């Protein structure tokens, strides 16, 4: 039952667009189906399989990456809308020859089991650390005028969008707290 319309290529017509953005510091130029999400672009077109597909509906956080430094769910973003944007995935968190302190803390604290939610947790955690450093309050921040401290309650609240069915939450919180230099 082969497709009678022949060639499957859909490039070069109104269903696709050219887009150029930066991923982990590398400039990428692609022609993509307009329906292709950032998540599928990373996984199926760029060979960056770190970001995971846990739900494809913005409900689990396993596809979390950083877009212009802020955490986003890459399954909810059409890649063709990202012209000239800068994206960081889990593959871009480590230094050239060693893990970042956050990644080291995840390993040391055993902040994962199956590891499937882990790239999303890490990118989300990276975003949380930056948000805390910039003093962004959250729903559980008590003093909205002072410095926001990386307490367990703050971290738990801010990481609530990243589900982990293995239940590594306390270790994830510990790893983030350790990286934030608290206690």
């Amino acid at each position, binding site marked *: 039952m082969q497709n009678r319309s022949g060639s499957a290529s859909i490039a070069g017509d109104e269903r696709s667009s050219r887009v150029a953005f930066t991923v982990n510091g590398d400039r990428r130029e692609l022609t993509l189906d307009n329906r292709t999400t950032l998540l599928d672009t990373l996984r199926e077109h760029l060979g960056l399989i*770190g970001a995971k597909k846990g739900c494809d509906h913005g409900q689990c956080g396993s596809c979390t990456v950083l877009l212009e430094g802020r955490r986003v769910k890459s399954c909810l973003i059409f890649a063709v809308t990202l012209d000239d944007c800068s994206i960081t*995935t889990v593959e871009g968190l480590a230094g050239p020859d060693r893990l970042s302190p956050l990644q080291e803390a995840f*390993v040391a604290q055993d902040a994962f089991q199956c590891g499937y939610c882990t*790239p999303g947790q890490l990118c989300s955690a990276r975003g949380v650390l930056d948000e805390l450093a910039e003093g962004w309050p959250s729903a559980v921040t008590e003093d909205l005028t002072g410095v926001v401290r990386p307490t367990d309650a703050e971290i738990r609240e801010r*990481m*609530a969008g990243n589900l982990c069915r293995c239940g590594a939450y306390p270790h994830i919180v510990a790893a983030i707290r350790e990286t934030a230099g608290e206690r």
Partner: protein
Amino acid sequence: MSAGAVGRAHPRLEGPEKVTGTARYAVEYPLEDVTYGWAVPAAAVRGRITRIDPDPALAVPGVLAVLHHGNAPRLSPDVEPELYLLQDPAVHYRGQLVALVVAESIEAAREGARQVRIDYDTEPHSTVLTADHPGLYRPEKVNPSYPTDTSEGDFDAAFDAAEVRVDATYRTPAYHNNPMEPHATTAQWRDGRLLVHDSNQGSTAVQAALAELFGIPRDSVRVISEHVGGGFGSKGYPKAAVVLASLAARQVDRPVRLALTRQQLFGPIGYRTPTIQRVRLGSDADGRIAAICHDAISQTSTITEFAEQTAVYTRSMYAAPHRRTTHRLVRLDVPTPFWMRAPGECPGAYALESAMDELASACGIDPIELRVRNEPTVDPDQGHPFSSRNLVACLIRGARRFGWGDRDPRPGARREGRWLVGTGVAGASYPARARASAATATALPDGGYLVRINATDIGTGARTALWQIAADALDVPPERVTIRIGDSDLPPAGVAGGSMGTASWSWALTRACQELRDRLGHHSGSLPPEGLTVAASTADEIRAQKPMARYAYGAHFVEVRVDAETGEVRVSRMLGVFAVGRVVNPTTARSQLIGGMTMGISMALHEEGLLDERYGDWVNHDFATYHIAGCADVEQIEAEWVAEEDSDLNPTGVKGLGEIGIVGSAAAIANAVRHATGVRVRDLPIRLEKLAGSSSFT
């Protein structure tokens, strides 16, 4: 064993890959010419497909094929009804995967799946489990092969004569496994051989099933499962994705990637059956139980029978001379339920451990003391001695660590601002078993060792634990040992399930390593370039095990606070103390135990499959509507263990950790909620309206 790797904390071996995004899961292997599958679920509950029109789907640019019962490659009908996919037009439940679209891209496959037109002849359906369903029957056995009913003494007379009686019915809803990685497969055929990268809990079984389904020799099938994103039972047996992908790859003669969608994980891959459980306890005024009865009702499908062993937990847990357990089942027009973390023990313990709490209240004695008073000396079910039984040790240690001693037993007595605070306890047990496995150990000329076994690490830490065990068995530093798992080309081994993984696999590995050491002791001169390899199998040894009651035990302690206005429940503290034999790697052991306990919080407070009777399907089939515990739901959770040496288990003395953490956890939470509020919730989950709406709520 001078190396002493066992018992030492070690970060998991694949940690660096998992935190850099380089660990490859089933649909993440680079491939030329790959295509994508998208499964199509049935929109009818019960009936037959009368017509499939693939043309609108085939008109979608990029769509290559639409597979369905009319054109899919043929499978052997004798393997497993669940896996007899795309072979006949019958529809047994809504959501059954009845077609598969293959396309050049994910987007085209998804659009194609939306365009497949299917007409059905439908029949009336029955999808709701009730205690008086006319279809109730007594199955021949319950999962996996326990007797359906048991009875000893005269329960009815003893219950009637008891001074204190508890007679309560508990209900649990359908629970969905929801591993974060969906069931996913990459399949490719080459020269009549089938290669699949698949997400499962045991690829030896997947290899066997595929070989039989496609009628090819086993060694023509290779299944690789290097990293698996969780399973919790749902990947313990081959499921739809691997069969559909293999069919499709044959049809289009190109590699196919297929990941089920999150929505498709609420049905075709199994779930925990809803249960209706009546528990009766009759005791004297001091809480000594004379009569115990557990009657469990659950559901199965019209495709095949799965009978959850819900009441089996009650057979061996507490002493009582008069005892009875029964299981009844109904065949409904629903997907087939299957294993979910501690099938049987998990829902069963919720009922029994809740009933124990009710009995403690009725007798006016402390719930820990009640359990101590009903501690059996031999297994009440079979009369066998226990290989070890440290439930009481767990309770006592946990009580001390938790600060149970100064508890005011009166319900609703502790208030802190807007919160009602309460504490609860529950016991836990889970069988400690092992399955036959094979392994090889190789001494290499460079002084290194290679051990091989088709174990699967679904996040348990098995790879790391086995590596530690092999090093000790070889009596070398672990750095000299390389371990290979997760590939059906390796020596065959059982699944990562039933808390049997480490016990089974380490047994075979240990034997292979011991035998290798022996051989090396007699070997003179240098080793050949390929090294010296010995193989071992544990089939005979496991068959020869003497009958004994082998169980892991545990005790859960929970503090909850309940919002006095809204009924919102928060678990402030949770402590689990376990007796699990030898702990190989404290790091990964702790993770597994708190993971089970966290799933217990989820079960007690959040998860519930809500069935719409009209459509015979769960309406909440995604993470937005089927809630699992999130980071903010877990405030303080700790797991620890008592020292336990048990020489009647296996060479390493391990009992398994995968399920014991969830067993009893939901009861401990329900018991704490009752202590906080005075409201006993007998139907999970404990949603706020069950508390705020109750007249006894303060």
